[in-house]
């Protein structure tokens, strides 16, 4: 992703950011509400049209490829709020997403990775709990065997037990060699799981570091823009 900018009308949500993600790498994107995280993810997946910049996948420019075809090239997004098809059963939710990419994921493999879904496979998705829905949503994204998995607000609104289950599944995803880009509100979780952490503030990257090099304190300062306002005050 090179020099990407995106906005909503006159509001510029993402300002000229560049990012590179290698296979098998996990990157956590943190930042306050309105920092531009979701817009960035949606731009990468193709459901939001960036105003400028390029998105490349394995060297190929995919900036102008519509979302449904980008899935076939290996980009999968778990939208904020799960966004399952509420009238379809769990199994149908998984099956409709089967794109034509070869790989290890299929309905059986997803049910293997999320054992709690097995007994729910004939239930309509609208009747599931938040954790079960998130598991189904992640499973649905995995069905296309993505090389890049984008997850927006993974743990938002989930019980701690459900979050454990979801994060447990990431090991399997990583083992398949997929790169992950996770938007996470829970800083502890983000620092724990990620190889790299990027902090966004008002559409820009204000901090970028290896996960284990970072302290909670450093991220907090970047998150709220404390260092910047100190610098501004000094002038």
């Amino acid at each position, binding site marked *: 992703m090179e020099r990407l900018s995106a906005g*909503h009308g006159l*509001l510029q*949500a993402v300002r000229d950011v560049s990012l590179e993600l290698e296979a098998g790498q996990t990157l956590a994107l943190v930042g306050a*509400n*309105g*920092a*531009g*995280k*979701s*817009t960035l993810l*949606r731009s990468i*997946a*193709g*459901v939001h049209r960036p105003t400028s910049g390029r998105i490349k996948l394995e060297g190929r420019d995919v900036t102008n490829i*519509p*979302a*449904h*075809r980008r*899935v*076939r090239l290996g980009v*999968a*997004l778990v*939208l*904020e*709020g799960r*966004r*399952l*098809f*509420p*009238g*379809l059963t769990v199994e*149908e*939710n998984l*099956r*409709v*997403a*089967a*794109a034509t990419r070869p790989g290890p994921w299929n309905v059986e493999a997803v049910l293997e990775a999320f054992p709690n879904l097995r007994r729910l496979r004939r239930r309509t998705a*609208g009747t599931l709990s938040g954790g079960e829905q998130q598991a189904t949503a992640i499973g*649905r*994204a995995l*069905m*296309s065997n993505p090389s890049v998995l984008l997850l927006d607000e993974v743990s938002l609104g989930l019980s701690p037990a459900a979050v454990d289950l979801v994060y447990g599944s990431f090991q399997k995803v990583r083992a398949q060699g997929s790169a992950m880009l996770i938007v996470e509100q829970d800083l502890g979780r983000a620092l724990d799981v990620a190889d790299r952490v990027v902090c966004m503030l008002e559409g820009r990257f204000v901090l970028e570091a290896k996960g284990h090099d970072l302290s909670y304190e450093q991220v907090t300062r970047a998150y709220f823009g404390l260092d910047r306002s100190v610098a501004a005050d000094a002038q």
Partner: protein
Amino acid sequence: MIWLNAVIQGVLLGGFYALLACGLSIMFGVMRIINLAHGDLAVLGAYVVWLLLSTYHVPLALAVVVALAVMLALGYLLQLAVLDRSLRSGVLTPLLATFGLSVVVQNALLIAFSPDVRSLGGDAGSLAISSWRLTSEISLPLLGVLTLAVAILVVEGLQAFLRRTTLGAQWRAASEDAEAARVVGIDASRIYAAATALAVAIAALGGIALALRSTFEPSAGPTQLIFAFEAVVIGGLGSLRGTLIGGILLGIAQALGSVVNPQYAVLAGHLVFLAVLAGRNSGLLSAARWQALRPRGGVTT
């Protein structure tokens, strides 16, 4: 006996209304588009058959097949070129777009075919006039039975497609949440185009049934739209089986009304429609299975 006969004829008439309404139901169910040009597209289908018969003198069955293919293609293009764009700017725009389309189709038909009243009844030969005599007072017209059979076949075929196939599940997925469908690799625009193609072709079937059983002219569409609309609302918005039942109820009401007095036929249908609206505004079989397309786009960060 006269009442029994009215109910039987009403069920057959209802098959015609259900066939007419099916496409309206599909477009509402899949895309939440209320197609005000539906009746005019039905009449256009009848004109395509009429044109093939009168100009090229092909057999009726062949003319119907060709007309359905033409209407499928027309529906596909209509969605991609007009309705897909209008969907992007809110709920009201598609309604206005189809209203405009209705005016355009009516006037184009008027220019092309003159305001003369036509019928395909004469070309259908025995199809239009054969019947089975059950008793001295009750007989089943072949055309009515055929229309009802086609309506049931269309509804049950669509139902099986939507419920049992993966492609059908993708249609329902695109209907429930177009954006979520796109991020899992479903081309929602193409599904919408296929749905409109199907809806327009089935509308044409309804128009052909109209042309075989009675007459049509360029301005016949809006009346048919009203009957189709009533069938959809009585049965429950977006439910295909509901539309079938709604059409049949409408047919029975009209037939019973006409027993009381021939000029009460249409009125009786309207009264049933109003009674259902007053009693249960979501229709008899509500559209819970389809779910409303949730307009969630909005600004997310």
